[in-house]
């Protein structure tokens, strides 16, 4: 903790990084889509399947007890990481998208009605737009959108104006995957609570970069995914206030979410199990906890510091690069360099860079309204992580010169 990152040591933790693509060293700069996995996570998943695999919460045999213990220990690791009040507030899901859908269905259907409003921002990812649109259609509520400025920052003045006693929920991305913007969620939550609205924060992009204390933030719902935090795909979490969760009906029915079932009536299980119907992604949850331990071992402060150095280095190069326009220049941003280049379409950039071993993302980043705002069909996006190096940023810009020359 507090120590600077030893990038070489960190790189050696990630087996996938040590390979060549078309004869060039892999430069993985698509971390906002998904991060790579360290040995310890891969080993934890493998160990589970090789030694402990069994269904949880029901078997009396040794393997089931081990699997259950590891699964519930993982919940405690994750509780601690987000500082939730108790394990009852930690619901495992398939990922951020399912976490948001759970809230939109279970909480939304019972708490939002005709004439009510849901407030989201212009920089939301599709997964924090569509579930609310669907809810609004079901219950005849209205979806309102907080505008952003040219830098990609939320318009806080407009936010205040749009907030009213009709607002039932504010859905806001903690860190934008398309722009890198970090939103002032503490202020947003405070202002939303002042009009009696709940707040859901989409933390998919943020949780591996910014410390999140759900109690200090007083956030009602915080959703995130393991796979953007060095953990496995297909697993995520919804952290929510126990009092709110208690009052919500189950999202899905099935095994594990019940206490007793008769054909006349079913008694639901207690939190958090009420929201975890069916056999969960046990290996994924165990891998998720290992990923959190990995982050803890390096320290979020050290991670943020290192990533800022990398982003600053890349931003300097981007500013100096002829014909490159950055998309998203918020004062408070992290890890994401989104851009368009004169004369070369982002998809061509993606292909050309790939042949140089450089993996970036080209497209709308599942945030089409953001693309519409900047009047671009797509952007190229390089996103950084703790294992990236300045030399890799150099490789990116050398490849960009190649692309520019090809179309010159």
């Amino acid at each position, binding site marked *: 903790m507090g120590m600077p990152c030893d990038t070489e040591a960190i790189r050696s933790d990630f087996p996938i990084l040590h390979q060549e693509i078309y004869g060039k060293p892999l430069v993985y700069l698509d971390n906002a889509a998904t991060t790579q996995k360290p040995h310890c996570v891969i080993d934890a998943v493998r160990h589970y399947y090789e030694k402990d695999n069994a269904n949880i919460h029901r078997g009396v045999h040794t393997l089931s007890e081990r699997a259950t213990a590891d699964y519930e220990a993982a919940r405690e690791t994750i509780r601690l990481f987000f500082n939730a009040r108790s394990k009852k507030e930690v619901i495992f899901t398939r990922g951020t998208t399912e976490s948001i859908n759970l809230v939109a269905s279970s909480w939304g259907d019972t708490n939002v009605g005709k004439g009510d409003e849901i407030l989201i921002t212009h920089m939301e990812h599709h997964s924090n737009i569509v579930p609310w649109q669907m809810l609004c259609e079901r219950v005849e509520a209205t979806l309102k959108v907080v505008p952003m400025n040219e830098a990609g920052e939320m318009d806080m003045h407009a936010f205040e104006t749009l907030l009213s006693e009709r607002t039932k929920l504010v859905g806001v991305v903690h860190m934008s995957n398309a722009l890198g913007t970090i939103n002032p969620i503490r202020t947003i939550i405070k202002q939303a609570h002042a009009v009696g609205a709940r707040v859901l924060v989409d933390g998919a992009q943020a949780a591996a970069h910014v410390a999140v204390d759900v109690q200090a933030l007083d956030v009602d719902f915080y959703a995130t995914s393991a796979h953007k935090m060095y953990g496995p795909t297909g697993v995520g979490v919804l952290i929510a206030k126990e009092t709110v969760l208690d009052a919500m009906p189950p999202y899905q029915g099935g095994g594990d979410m019940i206490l007793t079932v008769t054909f006349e009536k079913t008694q639901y299980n207690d939190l958090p199990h009420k929201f975890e119907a069916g056999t969960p992604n046990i290996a994924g949850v165990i891998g998720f906890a290992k990923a959190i331990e990995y982050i803890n071992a390096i320290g979020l402060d050290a991670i943020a510091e290192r990533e800022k150095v990398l982003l600053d280095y890349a931003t300097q190069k981007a500013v100096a690069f002829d014909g490159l326009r950055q998309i998203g220049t918020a004062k408070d941003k992290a890890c994401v360099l989104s851009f368009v280049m004169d004369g070369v379409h*982002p*998809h061509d950039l993606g292909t050309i860079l790939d042949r140089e071993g450089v993996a970036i993302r080209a497209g709308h980043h599942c945030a089409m309204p953001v693309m519409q705002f900047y009047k671009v*069909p797509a952007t190229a996006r390089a996103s950084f992580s703790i294992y990236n190096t300045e030399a890799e940023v150099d490789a990116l810009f050398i490849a960009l010169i190649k692309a520019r020359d090809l179309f010159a």
Partner: protein
Amino acid sequence: MFDLGDLYQQVIIDHTKSPRNFGKLEPCSHDAEGYNPLCGDQLHVYLQIDDDMIKEVKFEGQGCSISTASASLMTEKLKGKSVREFEHLFEAFHEMATADMSEKPDEETLGKLAVLAGVKEFPSRIKCATLCWHTLKSAIEHSDKAAKTE
């Protein structure tokens, strides 16, 4: 190894930078909108078909180099062709873009269009090359939709 230059041949770069038959055709007998939601490529094709002959064909929209060049080359190729010839070319092009690497494109039929054969080595880019052909096909097949512009 398959080289980047095999995909981005000079002809393709040229058609990207100065696409032929770019713009709206008014009036036209057929038109359709093509969209690839995965990458955001968007194009609109316009046709004037008289007596089963493609008298005029134009396109507009935005997309990557491959989709722009493919549409440009397509319009160049199709002007003056019959609808039947279009169908034949559609099959030949589709075959070229998706066939096994070892198979040589039907250059006799395709002519200049064969420069796009490289896309099959870039699986994520095949749709960029075929989008315009599918859009044109739907314009011809759904003439009722185009009727409003007549």
